[in-house]
């Protein structure tokens, strides 16, 4: 699949999600979304990271999956839609992010796939439409923030905060190989700080170091 088509795939699923979560079809949401299960299973079945990384076919599958997921979460702009989608995704399929990131993050970093995964994580913490709330019985906001921060920290720690010595330029393109990662990190931080769905004092109170 051509990279430009890959982006369209995300858009397609963004629109499709709105149909799936239409009031008339919500009861059949699980059934509709289950068409993605084989794709998840194909990737999860690989025990060895090396095996997963060495196959070009699987690289494409991973990229396809994250474009689809990004499209889906982009489409879930209301609190209700986000809750339905997130309840399906977490915790059953959430581990796939960690698995794929862990696989492609290892030096030499596969920049294209890692950026795609981090962009998806960035999409998760977006609260521009007030879809994430820290209600009495909804901790989706906190989960999304905590898991997202853990993934991003994993990347930044491995490359010592984009230290040029740890992550040297391989193709000479500074934007694609370094600054793009900085951009994703800044976007993530901005969305968390301005999202108003986490009470950071709680983290301090419970000695949770995710934020610091």
């Amino acid at each position, binding site marked *: 699949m051509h990279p430009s088509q890959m982006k369209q795939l995300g858009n397609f699923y963004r629109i499709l999600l709105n149909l799936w979560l239409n009031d008339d079809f919500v009861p059949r949401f699980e059934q509709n979304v289950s068409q993605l299960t084989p794709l998840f299973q194909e990737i999860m079945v690989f025990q060895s990271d090396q095996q997963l990384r060495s196959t070009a076919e699987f690289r494409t599958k991973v990229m396809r999956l994250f474009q689809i997921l990004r499209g889906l979460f982009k489409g879930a702009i209301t609190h209700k839609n986000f809750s339905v989608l997130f309840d399906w995704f977490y915790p059953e399929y959430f581990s796939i992010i960690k698995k794929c990131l862990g696989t492609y993050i290892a030096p030499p970093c596969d920049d294209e796939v890692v950026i795609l995964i981090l962009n998806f994580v960035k999409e998760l913490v977006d609260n521009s439409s007030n879809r994430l709330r820290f209600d009495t019985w909804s901790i989706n906001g906190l989960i999304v923030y905590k898991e997202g921060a853990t993934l991003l920290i994993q990347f*930044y720690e491995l490359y010592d*905060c*984009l*230290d*040029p010595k740890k992550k040297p330029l391989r193709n000479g393109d*500074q*934007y694609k190989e*370094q*600054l793009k*990662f*900085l*951009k994703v*990190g*800044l*976007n993530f*931080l*901005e969305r968390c*700080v*301005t999202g108003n769905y986490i009470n*950071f004092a709680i983290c*301090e109170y419970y000695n949770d170091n995710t*934020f*610091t």
Partner: protein
Amino acid sequence: MKALLNQKLDDIKNYKKLHLQVYHVLEEFFKKHLELIFLRFDFDLVVQIIEKLLLPGIREEAFEIKSCALLTIDCLNEFIYNNLKKPSKKQPTMAQNV
């Protein structure tokens, strides 16, 4: 923040959107989380942010960047002034750091 300081500002300047975003994030962060900065951050890092990013930001030609940098410094000054005037009793460590 460390990742930001690891990059040369001149390289970031070549990308207008990214350059502006750096100052936006700093402004938001300093507006809302100064307590955290004084409680947990290594102060050398804060000094480096001020010296390498905020002060050059004030001298930028682009109005938005200049404004973000000035607002960030204003937040910092206000916080320090208020805390020196009335040190926080809830968080003595922070008051001491200030």
